């Protein structure tokens, strides 16, 4: 590690430069706001980023960026204070100007958008975040911006009324009030050197403090280097270090009492990881590119993926969570993973060895080894994911089925791409699924079976049976194994129909019937321990 580091986290809170060090840096932002800053308007309900009661807005641009930060809503309950280093934060207490309610507040009041009031600050902040980028909201846009906020009292219609009636007020513009060039520069200057903050053994109750030993070297450390070299060195040196991007899943696990490595390396200050590079036939997505940014980056090149991102997670999560985080988390139900598998994405990594950074590329097909196990060497950092774009994926379709349409972890998800050449033969096939095995899977055997053959009813029927024989779904809180099989069969048939049309010579694709034999043999197959781990992961859930 280079000599010069900082041991206090520095951010702006409702316009005031704020410094936090020691154990408090490891608290979740929501806890810290409530218990230390005594700003109790921010509420904690689920502590897993699923209800939005803890919503605050944050403006952040990486070091060296010339752009002015833009405020966006985020969940404060699954974010450590240390991750806010260099950020501009506004809580519900920072909204009133000259004693007057801000537009979102006034609209929520006037439209009876609040009953018990507990979710209200979160909704107010989510609407406020939307108003920072949009002049007004129609019903659909309003609903999309509020997907990450749960209300149990109103039935939402008064809240939608409020969001649609809201009108921007220049006086209340957060950008105008809290992002003056002075404070933006001040914060940049203050946070320009690496952050390395240490907690005490018993004091911090959050990130990194879950070991019960008393050894000094187990004091929790949060390290945010400013160069990739520093990051790689630190990862190489600390074998048990946990690398985090937005840590939206790590945050949940900490809140739910899971043990974590005491050494956290955060990529938050590595400016080079915040970029999306278009390389002609592919997009190189940096490890710190959040899903909101990703969505706008792929809107033209991969519209199907952009559309899919709209029903995946909440705005609060998407404003911080990254594609690489979803990949590194390697959950069998990670929503983007079937897409990456189907498109033959390539994982770019960096690792410190022999005095320098060694970079390599790993095919996504070789990346998932077992349940939550990846083909990464010790100390190896994912720097980017390269997503092929263009023609070969013109028939790509993404599917997700969950109990609730939006902001719900999938029961199953799928990414399917079958292309037929001018000769009438299948020229390409990618079939990738999530939620049906211990890892996201791609069914190469079925793909190879399809390629080179002419589409027909019989062919797809056989393919469907093959798909089913390769699945190992489980029963859990999100659905039974049989339901998952039925869903996959239906998704496949729907795909074939809507994308390829009714195959020539086929009068009709009859309803798919799964044989008892298939179900009985496969539901119980697979290593028992893998299945158990998979079940418990799904049971505890959390966003990825």
């Amino acid at each position, binding site marked *: 590690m280079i000599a010069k580091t900082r041991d206090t986290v520095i951010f702006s809170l409702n316009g005031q430069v704020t410094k936090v060090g020691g154990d408090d840096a490891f608290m979740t932002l929501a806890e810290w706001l409530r218990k230390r800053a005594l700003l109790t*308007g921010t*509420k904690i309900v689920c502590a897993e980023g699923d209800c939005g009661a803890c919503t605050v807005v944050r403006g952040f641009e990486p070091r060296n960026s010339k752009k002015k930060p833009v405020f966006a809503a985020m969940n404060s309950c699954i974010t450590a204070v240390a991750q806010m280093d260099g950020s501009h934060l506004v809580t*519900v207490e920072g909204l009133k100007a000259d004693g007057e309610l801000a537009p979102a507040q006034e609209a929520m009041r006037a*439209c009876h958008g609040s009953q018990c009031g*507990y979710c209200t600050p979160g909704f107010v902040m989510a609407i406020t975040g939307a108003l920072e980028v949009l002049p007004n909201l129609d019903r659909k846009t309003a609903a999309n911006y509020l*997907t990450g906020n749960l209300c149990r009292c109103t*039935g939402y219609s008064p809240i939608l009324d409020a969001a649609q009636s809201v009108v921007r007020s220049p006086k209340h513009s957060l950008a105008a009030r809290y992002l003056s060039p002075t404070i933006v520069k001040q914060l940049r200057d203050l946070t320009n050197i690496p952050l390395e903050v240490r907690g005490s053994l018993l004091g911090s109750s959050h990130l990194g403090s879950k070991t019960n030993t008393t050894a000094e070297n187990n004091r929790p450390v949060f390290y945010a280097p400013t160069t990739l070299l520093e990051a790689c060195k630190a990862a190489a040196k600390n074998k048990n270090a946990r690398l985090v991007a937005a840590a939206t899943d790590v945050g949940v696990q900490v809140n739910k009492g899971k043990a974590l490595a005491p050494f956290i390396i955060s990529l938050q200050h590595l400016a080079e990881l915040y970029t999306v590079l278009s390389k002609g036939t592919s997009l190189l997505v940096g490890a710190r590119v959040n899903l909101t940014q990703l969505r706008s980056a792929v809107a033209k090149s991969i519209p199907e993926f952009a559309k899919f991102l709209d029903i995946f997670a909440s705005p609060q999560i998407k404003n911080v969570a990254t594609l690489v985080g979803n990949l590194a988390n390697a959950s069998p139900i990670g929503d983007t993973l079937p897409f990456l598998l189907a498109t033959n994405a390539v994982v770019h990594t960096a690792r410190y060895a022999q005095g320098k950074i060694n970079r390599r590329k790993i095919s996504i097909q070789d990346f998932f080894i077992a349940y939550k196990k990846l083909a990464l060497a010790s100390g190896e950092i994912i720097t980017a994911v390269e997503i092929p774009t263009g023609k070969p994926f013109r028939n790509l379709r993404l599917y997700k089925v969950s109990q609730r349409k939006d902001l719900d972890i999938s029961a199953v998800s799928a990414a399917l791409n079958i292309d037929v050449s001018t000769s009438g033969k299948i020229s390409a096939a990618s079939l990738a699924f999530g939620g049906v095995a211990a890892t996201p899977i791609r069914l190469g055997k079925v793909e190879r079976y399809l390629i080179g053959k002419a589409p027909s009813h019989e062919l797809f029927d056989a393919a469907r049976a093959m798909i089913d024989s390769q699945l190992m779904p489980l029963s859990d*809180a999100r659905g039974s194994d049989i339901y998952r099989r039925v869903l996959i069969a239906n998704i496949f048939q729907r795909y074939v129909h809507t994308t390829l049309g009714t195959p020539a010579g086929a009068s009709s694709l009859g309803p798919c019937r799964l044989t008892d034999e298939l179900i009985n043999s496969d539901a119980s197959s697979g290593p028992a321990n893998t299945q158990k781990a998979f079940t418990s992961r799904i049971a505890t859930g959390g966003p990825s």
Partner: protein
Amino acid sequence: MKHASPPHDSSITHVTGESEYVDDRTMLAGELFVGCFYLKVAHAEIDAIDTSAALKIPGVAAIVTAKDVAHNAWGPIFQDQPIIADKVTEFAGEVLAVVGATTPEALRRGLAAIKIRHRTRPAILTIGEAITRKSFIGGERFIRRGDVDKALNDAPHRMSGKLVIKGADHFYLENQSAVAYPKEAGQMEVHSSTQHPTETQHVVAEALGVNFSDVVCIVKRLGGGFGGKESQSSPIAAYAALVANKTKRAARIVLTKDDDMIMTGKRNPFEIHYEVGFDKKGNILALRSRLYSDGGAYADLSTAIMERAMLHSDNAYFIANVEVIGQVCKTNCHPHTAFRGFGGPKGVAVIEGIIEDIARELKLDALDIRKSNVYREGHDVTHYGQVVENNRLPSLFNELEKTSDYRRRRSDISLFNHNVLTATNRFSPGAETLRGLSMTAVKFGISFTTKFLNQGNALVQVHRDGSIQVSTGAVEMGQGVNTRIAMLVAEEFGVSLDTIRVMTTSTEKNANTSPTAASTGTDINGAAAVLAAQKIKQRLSALALKLAIISPENWPSKTAGLGSFPEIEIDTLDDSPGLTDFSGNKIVIPRRKLSNVSSNNTATGQLKNAERFSISFPQLVNEAYLSRISLGEYGHHRTENLGFNKLTGQGQAFQYFSQGAALSEVEVNRHSGEIKVRRVDILMDVGRPINESLDIGQVSGAFVQGMGWVTTENLVYDNEGYLLSHSPSTYKIPSVQDTPREFNITLDHNPGNKANIRGTKAVGEPPLLLAISVWSAVKDAIRYVSERDADHLAFNRTHLLPIPATAEQTLRHLDPHLFTAPVIK
């Protein structure tokens, strides 16, 4: 849409984040964090709990176990539940030890260091097992009318079925929480998120072994309750109080959502076995219904919930021959409890589902069957013998049928579904979804079925500047009870709403109160507040009549300090309010009434020439104070004309009925079973509303909450009875995207309710039951498949669509042949 009626009294502090909830209270020096230790097994004998290692963790201040509890039994009906379990744990999540620590981290480590030796015992986890093993809570209850056997035998058509209804989590946003402050001489002040401050006070006092008078329970507001904090908040408060008592330090318990969902009970699951007889027109001739509920490990409120289910088994429909039998089962689940609607939704779901099935069997429109069975003149006595007064049901059906354009939409949907079902195959473009349409009603009885709970008290204090504080036993949990009570009191005094402040609920101001539950919050507490206000008003009126005939220079404000004029004596028995008019922040006595007064009075003066006498409210109040007239009053209200005998199942169970009807249109995805609610039209009877905006908010909120219960909210347990869906990542309440695409709510114009204060009707619970129309609309969509497929019909005849109709369950009923496992586990 902005509404005209006054907003919620906390509407500003809610949007600014200033509204204070329990955990927003600033922590005191030395205050402890409190957490609970429990096992994840359904039933076990406890051999030993070893807390020694946990006590050694730095920061762990105290551990409380059963031996620390003075009276270790509580329960809202039967005291059958330990506050902290001792020798046996009866459900996964039952508290065995409580830890108090200086930091959340010390608390977490302390809880992890508790060691326990236990032996698991066989558990009962389903209603079916409980029935087999005769594991029951309380006896069998019944309501009977007519000759059911004969009517069933004579009926041209008969149908039977078993409906499975699962529970639901309240999912209030504010988790269970309490802070306890130890006070001198063994007293305890408890701030709790509870719907029942009085019971919390009692449970805490008994846990500590002190008099009820030594405990004060204070409730500022709740971040949602929905029944989940009617009884189950009490032991939570006791945990904080026990730690506070043991350490003499403030102690705070705030459950995580996970702990809250695991530890606390839910809406009772039900299984209902029924038999119904009907004629060819769909007239229901007889119903025999046997209701079993899963009460969980302890009684809690389950027997009362069962009563309400039985009392609502008729819903809006007259049935001449009825036998309803109810039995609560004891299982090793968390003790199930009140949830908006109490048992009502279960009784109503059965009869509304039956009507959908009759429609399918007779190939009739379900709405026509509803209309021909609805309570109406000559057919207006319920199965428990109460006349349905102020019956709006026939007109609600007729009006909603018109305003929602039911007939046209029915034919549109029939055509749409015809096209879908005759498409080349189910994957053809446009064949992806089916639609369903259903109109259901609600007739919800208002009153606690336990008569003695139907009382309320209120304290009204007028201050010298004319501002008024009102304190009642009502708990504000978002429903707007404070706003409604303030409006009633403001109207009574004729003052503007901003002069009224409804105060924090506290047992030292209002004792022996009932829970804010059964939709009665405004009815009983508002009525009590109005009674108290009337008593003060009577005195103020009497004083005004005196002032009217005294020259203003002799009024107390000019003379009382000097003693230069005789103090005014008032006769409180005067019928003075009849002579005065309180309105516009003034008290006015018209001249003709003044002359009545003057004839009885010895004083003379200028009044003969006056047109009228007028004095501002604050001025009159000040003169009253200076005349040593009391400006505070206590009111006690008891609901009249109630008399239901639970043992015979007959009598006047309710003061009145809140009624309504809803039409829901749904779209069901044939490939995934996912449900989308396209449009909902509601016509709701709330009598003469006090605050229309708040009422509409209750209707939309209750409806969407009910939608969650009948569709996406799915409680999943493991084989040990441990809840797996214990957070919003696995338990899906409706999100903003689920609210009906088109949502029309209209309040019925009904000035005719004579039974209640101001002719108003309760609105908290009844609209939740209207969400059953979403479930029955899904049934309707499925029916379109049955119409053309005999196997499908046979399956759906024997397998009723359960509640919740999750996507999986819906797909199973749409396409049963895709599934080979049993449909209902």
